[in-house]
């Protein structure tokens, strides 16, 4: 009688096991290896936020895609529009600016889930994230979260799905000791801002072995593009997240096949607080 194996075990059966050859190098992972000589070309980064001001000079190359999500209270349905939209608050434009600094040639997609609709927030956010994942965007930057525990399961499912599909979800942690999804999920790249340091280097980031958050990046007193055409000097965890998103876009444009797991490994190896990190 043939004994059937439990599902998944097949991968580890004797005939299927072989020496791992994924995208990671055999030697040490260096910054040069990770993102030297790249610009993010061909990688699609979703900015899930308040929209992007497409007219702002700092945003540079044209925005590749627009999608906005709005809860229509009359019908109770979330409506999606693919029309060009504006940036309600200014924040999305700032995040786009950061990603551009790190990955000037990446394709930016603006996913607007923030506007003047407070009550529909969580469902709009969910719909936007779902769309971004179905679209297969490579990196999605969320500088916001929901504290609503009713949505825990839904966001968790989406974030897990993204992870297994090779999509990087980068989130900003909430600075208060409160629960905020999806930054509390292990599958996300959770980021906090590094407290005041001398000078500003967009490539400065750190790794923490006791997440969340898993990474720390610049987020204090940075001059960023703001909707309306000007720049604002801003501080917050929500500006640290796009630094990691931009970096991921850069790395992915050079190493197409890396999974989120491997990308976390690369980030860990190239963080400034990892001994032996070669700059």
């Amino acid at each position, binding site marked *: 009688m043939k004994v059937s194996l439990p599902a998944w075990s097949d991968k580890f059966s004797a005939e299927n096991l072989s020496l791992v050859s994924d995208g990671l190098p055999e030697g040490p992972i260096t910054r040069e290896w990770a993102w030297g000589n790249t610009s993010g070309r061909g990688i699609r980064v979703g900015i899930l936020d308040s929209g992007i001001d497409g007219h702002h000079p700092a945003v540079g190359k044209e925005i590749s895609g627009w999608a906005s999500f709005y809860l229509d209270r009359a019908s109770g349905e979330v409506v999606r529009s693919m029309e060009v939209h504006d940036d309600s608050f200014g924040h999305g434009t700032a995040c786009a600016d950061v990603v551009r600094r790190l990955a000037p040639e990446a394709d930016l997609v603006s996913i607007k889930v923030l506007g003047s609709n407070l009550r529909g927030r969580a469902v709009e956010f969910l719909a936007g994230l779902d769309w971004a994942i179905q679209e297969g965007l490579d990196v999605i930057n969320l*500088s916001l979260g929901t504290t*609503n525990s009713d949505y825990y399961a839904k966001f968790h499912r989406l974030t897990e799905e993204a992870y297994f599909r090779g999509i990087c979800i980068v989130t900003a942690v909430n*600075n208060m000791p409160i629960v905020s999804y999806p930054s509390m999920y292990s599958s996300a790249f959770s980021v906090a801002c590094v407290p*005041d340091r001398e000078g500003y280097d967009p490539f400065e980031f750190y790794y923490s072995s006791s997440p969340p958050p898993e990474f720390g990046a610049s987020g204090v007193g940075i001059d960023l593009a703001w909707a309306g*055409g*000007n720049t604002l000097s801003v501080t917050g*965890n929500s500006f640290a997240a796009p630094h990691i998103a931009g970096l991921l876009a850069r790395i992915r444009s050079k190493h197409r096949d890396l999974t989120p797991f491997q990308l976390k490994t690369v980030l860990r190896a190239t963080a400034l607080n990892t001994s032996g990190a070669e700059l």
Partner: protein
Amino acid sequence: MLSLLSDAAIAGKVFDGGTHKELLEEIVLMARRVVGACGATLFLIDLETEELVVELVHGGSEKELENLRLPVGRGIAGYVAATGQALAVENVQNDVRWAQDVGAKMTYRPDRILGVPLIRDDEIIGVLELIDKEDGASFSVDDIDSVSRFAIMAAIALEQSKTASTLTWVLRAALADLGDGRKTLSKVSLDQAKRLEHDPEHHQQLAVAARLGRILRAGPAERRLCLELVESLLAFRQVSTEEQSDP
């Protein structure tokens, strides 16, 4: 006694109790002091009208801000209210739309704003904003941390205020009715009772509530009319709010 209590309960629901006002003020004052800011404003979110309403203001341009209502879709406070993420801005006048929408309503022009969310039980209920540090420095990550602590306290105080408001009304009314029973009260409660006896607004509010109570007690027809009227008004209000906020 019981009808008095129920009248008082009605009054408590209708009139803003503001029991924890003192506590809330202390919290906001502390936040301002610890960080060394020129001004502090506590906003509450009004979900029905999608607005930020000023609950408390210290320093800055107090008088102007007191009755301010901001649409939630703009500016620093708006973003903080929508996302629950804390945010600090150095040169807020550079935000042209903020300057037009909100800044235009004030004579005092802040340069730096720090906004921190008030979160309680999964819900973002308000924003605590601090303005311009006295020493001219920027708001640091430490400042964000400190102010966040006060925001949590404020959120709790607000929650207590809501539940306490109605109860306090009931209890105040009970106080008035206790007569000899008062002798057993603590000094603090006695002071409260004395203060209320001489507060004309308190008596006026209780009187309105009593009249409402009498109507409801007059008979089933009266009660029904009153209920239907109020429900219709509420429904109308909700519909007109939604119509206004459609894009």
